[in-house]
């Protein structure tokens, strides 16, 4: 057996172990296109969360996850960090002042310095994230005890997390909406315990991040089939 075969065997074993130790995930990723997209080299995108003044609760870690996933790899997009973008355009992308619809963009661009700052950073698309991950169900019972001779747990618990996110894509070239991508992921985690608890965790938020980022990249880079 060559070294490469042994290494790939180890990777496969680790993969099966990871699969065996994870919960159950179902996901649905969709996009709705409103216009032709595409991105030139040098053009960049910004990922922002919709305002919490509007009741949105998108987690900071989800925004960072999408930013990382889109910028990673050889075909990664140029992503401007959201804090840098918001600071550079203060106060026009604050939770209170950010435009809620594309029809607010022409007026925004007329404000002193706004169009220039956007052009300096060569921002082509703004992606507005909306949604969050919630625990929607759970059950079972698990009890643990410890004594002088040792300890252990016994029982079974489970819970279900739903990660629903929407990414609205605004094209700053035409100051119009390019469409949206949605991710609807449901993950059920299990925790059986017979002396030692064995967590089988379904990472719904991580799956929603990976799925949405992949679809978003295709949405922005690819032109629609004719």
């Amino acid at each position, binding site marked *: 057996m060559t070294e490469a075969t042994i290494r790939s065997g180890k990777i496969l074993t680790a993969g099966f172990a990871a699969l065996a130790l994870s919960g159950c995930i179902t996901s649905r990723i969709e996009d709705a296109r409103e216009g032709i997209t595409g991105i030139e080299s040098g053009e960049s995108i910004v990922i922002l969360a919709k305002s*919490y003044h509007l009741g949105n*609760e998108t987690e900071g*870690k989800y925004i*960072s996850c999408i930013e990382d996933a889109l910028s990673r790899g050889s075909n990664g997009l140029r992503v401007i960090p959201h804090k840098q973008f918001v600071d550079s355009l*203060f*106060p026009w992308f604050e939770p*209170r*002042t950010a435009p809620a619809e594309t029809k607010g963009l022409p007026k925004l661009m007329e*404000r*002193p310095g706004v169009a220039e700052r956007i052009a300096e950073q060569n921002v082509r698309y703004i992606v507005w994230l909306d949604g969050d991950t919630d625990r929607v169900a759970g059950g079972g019972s698990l009890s643990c005890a410890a004594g002088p001779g040792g300890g252990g747990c016994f029982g079974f618990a489970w819970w279900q997390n739903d990660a629903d996110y929407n990414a609205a894509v605004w094209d700053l070239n035409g100051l119009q909406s390019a469409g949206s991508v949605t991710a609807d992921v449901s993950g059920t985690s299990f925790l059986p315990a017979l002396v030692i608890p064995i967590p089988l965790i379904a990472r719904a938020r991580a799956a929603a991040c990976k799925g949405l980022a992949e679809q978003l990249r295709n949405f922005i880079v690819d032109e629609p089939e004719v």
Partner: protein
Amino acid sequence: MFMAGCGSNVTLDPVTIPAPLINPMPLSVAVRIPAEFEHYVHEDEVLGREKWRIDLGRSNAALFSQLFEFMFDDVTIIGPDDDPSALSIDALIEPSIDAFEFSVPSQSRTESYAVWIRYRLKIYDNAGDMYANWPLSAYGKSEEFGLTGDEPLKRAAILAMRDAAALMIMNLDKSTAISTLKDRPAATLASGAKEGVASATAQEEEVAQEKIARLPKRRQVTLPPPGPVAGPAVLSMDPDEDASRENFPEGSSND
């Protein structure tokens, strides 16, 4: 941070905001920072267990000083005991805090920390009379993600202050009409200004009397001979009609 029965002390460092993309108002203002605004401390007990002491310190004074320097052409920061009457200014602004509230995850059962601050801006004209009194509510929310200890609460407070800054940039003039204080005659000039108004009124009356004296003569000259074609054209030249048309507010037509 959350030790049951223990207290939490949070002290904010002075806040900085990015330079806003705005054109400053051509006003000369003084900003008077009251002592309680510069050293604002909020103490609270969450769910009867956790005692919190939040010291905003100089953060508010620093934020408002920076903000007004961006918003106005000329800004002078004065202390609570300084006399603004010696300054040549269009307006005096005095900020204060009416209320401060916050929530932590143990209360809200979310992963978020939130801060609400209700500010009040009192604006005085250059005679020292109160011109506007504007209460404004600001809100900031932060998660624990990437932050440790009391950092999320500090972050929420900073975001609330930033929210207040954005609100003031957007609405200060709309809500207080502070820009109308530009070059407003000072109190010492008020009597002189009144005299000026009185003499102008007398002159206008004289002119009006002259017009009235001239009107019959002019009408006699311009009165048309009876007939359907010439009549209306000559009547529209009536100087009284023109004067009354000038009094219509702009935009009152449907054009």
